[in-house]
């Protein structure tokens, strides 16, 4: 098996993500925009961290850097083991069936042909798509596509899984089902999860720790551990109460910037 997006010799144990003084500046000179400033974050192996913040505060930028697709301008990012990334859009290849899309991830890791198909089918069954393994992306609903993408992420067998608003485009019911599924596979595979969302309740539903980010420039404004028993119910009173507290903090942050339409809830 080959490691692709991880540094040659991980300085940290498998599953840990450590950001020290990370900053990101896009452009240079008078065009320079500081998108992320002086961000420290230490994620424990197997921890589920949700990153919540308004639009444009640098959440995607942060995730992209953890996944190794962008380099930070300053500071260091250490990740223990391979990092997989799941996008808001499922980004399935339309000429491949569900199975073949999952197989591609296995193939690029050098898994041999005989084993690939079985493993891909098994993973699709795991995300409850057993009946649709031979359909192509356009024949699947949005939620089903996102589950194929989840199966593909699982196929990568990564130590760290970054998810950038993976459920943003789904309806509430489908999203609830995806919460259950994501929680299940996470409990099973025990990867470290970095989950970006706009939805504060979603963060409370899923995460061990919610990280709130503020904008201009992007930075972490608050972190809150969540020890509520799982599975948590999105519409339950404790989840709503915890979400209300976090929302208030975000609102205060926005108010301090005096930009009322800056955050949508």
């Amino acid at each position, binding site marked *: 098996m*080959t490691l*692709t*997006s991880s540094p040659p010799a991980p300085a940290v144990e498998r599953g840990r993500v450590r950001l020290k003084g990370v900053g990101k500046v896009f452009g240079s000179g008078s065009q320079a925009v500081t998108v992320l400033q002086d961000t420290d974050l230490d994620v424990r192996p197997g921890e589920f961290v949700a990153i919540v913040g308004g639009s444009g505060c640098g959440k995607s930028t942060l995730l992209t850097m953890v*996944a190794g*697709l962008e380099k930070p301008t300053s500071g260091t990012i250490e990740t223990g083991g391979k990092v*997989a*990334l799941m*996008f808001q*859009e499922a*980004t399935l*290849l*339309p*000429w491949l069936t569900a199975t073949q899309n999952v197989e*591609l*991830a296995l*193939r*690029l*890791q050098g898994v041999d042909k005989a084993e690939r198909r079985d493993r891909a089918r098994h993973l699709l069954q795991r995300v*409850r798509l057993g*009946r*649709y393994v031979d*359909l*192509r*992306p*356009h*024949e*699947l*609903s*949005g*939620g*089903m596509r996102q589950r194929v993408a989840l199966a593909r992420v699982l196929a*990568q067998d990564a130590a760290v899984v970054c998810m950038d608003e993976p459920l943003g485009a789904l309806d509430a*019911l*489908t999203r609830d*089902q995806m919460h*259950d*599924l994501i929680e*299940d596979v996470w*409990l*099973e595979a*025990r990867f470290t999860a970095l989950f970006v969302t706009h939805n504060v309740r979603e963060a409370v539903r899923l995460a061990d720790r919610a990280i709130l980010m503020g904008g201009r420039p992007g930075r972490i404004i608050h972190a809150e551990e969540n020890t509520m*028993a*799982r*599975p948590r119910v999105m519409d339950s009173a404790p989840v709503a109460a915890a979400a209300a507290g976090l929302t208030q903090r975000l609102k205060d942050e926005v108010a301090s910037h005096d930009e009322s339409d800056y955050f949508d809830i």
Partner: protein
Amino acid sequence: MTSPTTSISERRPLDPIDVPARPRPTRRPGRKVLAPLLAVVVLLAVWQGVVATGWRPDYLLPGPVTVLAELGHLVTLPEFWAAMARTLSRALTGFALAIVIGTAIGLATAGSALLRASIGSLITGLQTMPSVVWFPLAILLLGLGEGAIMLVVVLGAAPSIANGVLLGVDQLPPSYFRLGRVLGAQGWTLYRHIVIPGALPAYVSGLNQGWAFAWRSLMAGELLVVIPGTAALGNRLAFAQEFADAPGLMAYMLVILIIGMIADQIFSAWSRYLRRTRGLTQA
């Protein structure tokens, strides 16, 4: 916290709302075949109509019945099939060469910013140039022979094919490249699994256009370049004109039209297949 083995199925079924977004498209295979046939019928009717006006005498402008009878006679002659075989082998050889050259140039250009800047617009420029224009030079350089014909056929078809590759790569969504990087595909692997299959629909359009140009160049070539002792469809057309054999001439024209239509059907079928499997069509 629940036990790590809690399965989703114990909580809530997922399947009730798991209806695929769109049902598999129902296919109407008849239509794609019937439409061109209908076109042929219309063509024959118009043709018969023009003949019926008596605008030109019968021996200059024969009607469909005479021409089809002539065609029926032609297909029994070995010379006809020899001419057909020569023309088709030239077309296929030239087209195959154009595919190899056009694809190689297209991929190289798509993959290199330098090549892109230097020859990208040249490819588009060449594409707009009628390939017949190359014949005088080709004949001057290579003489009246197969070489000149091949050169022009390739020059006619290769730019369209290269352009198809370029368009295909340009139209790929940036998210495919990000996905490739996340999955660890680089260099040739990225091309093999993501870029090439992703660019295929535009490439097939390029092939279709390339074929059309190859076929036109070949016909022009066969009218201009007559190699003694060999017969080809284009030469036959020229002979028929010299001998004022209108039915023969039109029979050969019909053959050339039919070959063009068959090729077009093959490429369209391929395009439709690609578009359908990728969900790019409604029906």
